[in-house]
């Protein structure tokens, strides 16, 4: 595995609107979760050397890692989780945040976005999968 961070297609080629369009066509949990898992498979692999405590975001059920880089005015985020569904959900988050400025990230209504996707529960703080913590960390970094 390369030691280089590779930019994700999410947010760079696949926008949050693309994700919304994609999910508008899916009905039922099976179709939605199949789509989530497929998106997760398209995440760029996070090199192992970045999977250190400094980048780890706590989840009770599963672990996730977040690496952030800011170039000029725009952010790129690199993520990994050890679960398929969280990877997919992280891809959905990055579709909204990658390539954006701090201001745009702060303005973006992530709750509304997840609500439209029918995935509100996945983003709630009570979920122990680390997704909420990743979003909170991104918002903190871009404050």
């Amino acid at each position, binding site marked *: 595995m390369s030691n280089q961070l590779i930019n994700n297609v999410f947010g760079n080629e696949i926008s949050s609107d693309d994700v919304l369009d994609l999910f508008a066509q899916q009905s039922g949990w099976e179709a939605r979760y199949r789509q989530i898992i497929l998106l997760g498979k398209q995440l760029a692999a996070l090199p192992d050397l970045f999977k250190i405590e400094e980048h780890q975001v706590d989840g009770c059920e*599963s672990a996730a890692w977040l690496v952030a880089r800011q170039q000029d005015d725009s952010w790129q985020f690199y993520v990994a989780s*050890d679960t398929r569904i969280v990877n997919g959900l992280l891809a959905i988050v990055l579709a909204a945040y990658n390539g954006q400025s701090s201001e745009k990230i702060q303005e973006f209504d992530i709750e509304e976005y997840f609500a439209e996707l029918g995935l509100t529960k996945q983003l709630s703080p009570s979920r122990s999968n680390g997704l909420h913590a990743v979003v909170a960390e991104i918002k903190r970094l871009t404050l």
Partner: protein
Amino acid sequence: MLKKVTNLNQEQNNAAMRAQFPVLQQQANGYPLVYLDSAATTQKPDPVIEAINVYYQQDNANVHRAAHCLSARATQKFEHARDLVAQFINAPSREQVIWTKGATEAINLVAQSYGSLLNLGDEILLSTMEHHANIVPWQQLAQQRDLVIRVIPLTANGELDMNAVSELLTERTRIVAITHVSNVLGSVNPIAQLVKMSHQVGAKVLVDGSQAVAHMPVDVQALDCDFYVFSGHKMYGPTGIGVLYGKTELLNAMPVWQTGGEMIKKVSFSGTTFNALPFKFEPGTPNISGVIGLGAAIEFLTSLDRVAIHNQEQVLLAYAKQQLEQLSEITLIGSPQEQMAVISFVVKGEHHSDIATLLDQQGIAIRAGHHCAMPLMDALGLNGTLRLSFGCYTTKQDVDAFITALQKTLEFL
């Protein structure tokens, strides 16, 4: 023919039992809710909910204080619940039943109060299968007082390694803190034997009964344990209430822990004298509705045919294990000889979190993760398990629905 009739009665009994639990009468994500997470918290039956409502609607007053009739009623119910707990665990006297927020607070109380009597180099013996609540308070104490923590390892099938116990118990062992039933593996520990061995070296024994009290009779005198702790919410009672039972001479010798009102006899700026047991350890206005709710939960439990409930849980346990074993992707974790209402398993090549999320989509509530037992996960070489756990309301239909949803999930992934 006879068998058929018995089955029919069983189904009627199950239906009548489930009807007492309002939470179970709902859909989750469009499917009938299948609740298999009773080891985390049990659902509450109508009589418990009703007792709490009645207290707030008719009897709300502070206890032990006022002369008025509301306070008298509240106090009577509050102290009656203490009698119920004493009977429930066969405590020699009601004064040995101390209310806490839960098992966690009860362990912290013993660790900080009894623990303050321990000295440099004294040893605390725990086990690999302990819940964090029965590890961290002792670690904190060990740091404060330079004590040594030793840990009983497990055998390959997930039981305490009793051969190791005799080596780990030394004349320096002051306290052995051990769970009655593992919250991950369901293993039932040989407490009476452990107590006997511990007493031979002069060590005291604290038993975490959180996973035991709802599923098996507990007799603290027969166990001869020095402390026994449990939480109300894992035995059909409310959250925020628990019990510390202790032997009278130990509780009397222990210094007060948290202090304030209620637990004093006389206060002046030159000094304070403390109340007798149990009030010595109950500062401040207690969780009155919680205590009354717990009393109702014990009345509910004792009204059941507990042998029948135990047998039903054991039949379901065996059935669920047998069904799981038929799925090639599944590995059961632990195979203790005596197992109580809890099954842990892992799925080959899949993360427990993904399985739990997809089961949730199908209305199945089970637990995924380390179950507050990270040292056990380390010992097992796992980063987590899936856990299903039963209560008196769990039915074969629940297990069948779970297995069907699990199969669908495995095909899906």
